[in-house]
């Protein structure tokens, strides 16, 4: 994975497979605290205790197509490379919360990459799931909820490329507002 946004796209698949109806992605970056934190919270089926214990073992997966799963181990690896950690909280039937912390200034902390593009894909192809994106920096906070946007715009799905492009621009512009110098978001023109 070349960017943190791709790791996010990857681990969100776990939430989708766990039949979550609401998935929240939160990114907090702080230059002062030297912190970069990604949190993914879902209300899916949760992880059973025996799997939770070794869920970051690449050879543990609930999938049947192949016997290994690299999503969480990869994220853990990237976090630990920077002196950070991966924390997983889960309760069967309630949902799962995954938190990856990175040291913000560490040279091995990957760039976030095209998070807007990732989020657009998620809301476009999963019309039954409500996605919330929250980004917090020292200059402010931005929040986007797909459910609120659908209600406000009076649409059932985002399956409309003009609308998707506009939403992408909108999120991009708002992220630029709170961007901390030296850490830029990729905004498509």
């Amino acid at each position, binding site marked *: *994975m070349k960017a943190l946004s*791709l790791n996010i*796209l*990857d681990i969100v*698949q776990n939430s*989708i*497979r766990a039949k979550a109806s609401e998935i929240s992605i939160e990114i907090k970056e702080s230059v002062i605290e030297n912190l970069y934190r990604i949190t993914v919270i879902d209300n899916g089926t949760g992880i059973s205790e025996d799997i939770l214990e070794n869920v970051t073992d690449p050879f543990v997966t609930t*999938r049947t*197509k*192949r*016997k290994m*799963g*690299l*999503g969480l181990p*990869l994220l853990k690896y990237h976090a630990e490379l920077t002196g950070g950690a991966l924390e997983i909280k889960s309760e069967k039937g309630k949902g799962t919360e995954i938190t990856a912390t990175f040291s913000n200034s560490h040279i091995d902390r990957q760039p976030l990459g*095209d998070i807007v*593009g*990732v989020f*657009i*894909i998620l809301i*476009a*192809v*999963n019309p039954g799931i409500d996605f919330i994106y929250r980004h917090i920096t020292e200059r402010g906070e931005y929040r986007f909820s797909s459910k*609120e*946007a659908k209600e*406000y*715009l009076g649409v059932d799905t985002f*399956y*409309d*490329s*003009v*609308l*998707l492009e*506009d*939403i992408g*621009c*909108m999120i991009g*512009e*708002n992220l630029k*507002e709170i961007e901390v110098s030296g850490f830029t978001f990729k905004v498509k023109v």
Partner: protein
Amino acid sequence: MSKITSLADLKKKREELKSGLDIRIKAINPETIVQVKVAMATCGIASGAKTVMEFFLEQLERRNVAAVVTQTGCMGYCYAEPTIEVKLPGKDPVVFGFVDLKRADQIIEKYIKTGELVDGIIPMNYQTIDLKE
């Protein structure tokens, strides 16, 4: 055009465009529409599934193909990622492997539009090594 920074701007723009946008079919019937599934597991994403997904989302609509694009997990063809499954109405699904943007373009122009097969098809009777024996 002024920048869109809030949902209110978005709504305003949509209302301005409305006359042109309403031609889209509202009810999507899976039996009469092309279905494209992009495999988006770790293997797919690492090989570029995001770019392929963006291409299909944008180009199918731009080229006036009535289609629905969804994502799926790992299909077990990790060696051939990015993989996509295309189901034309009334036909069996076909899985294509090693889908880069050039092949994605061929799949739309040839397979989806005319039914002509293109390179990269993964035979449906292929089984993962575990399933043999």
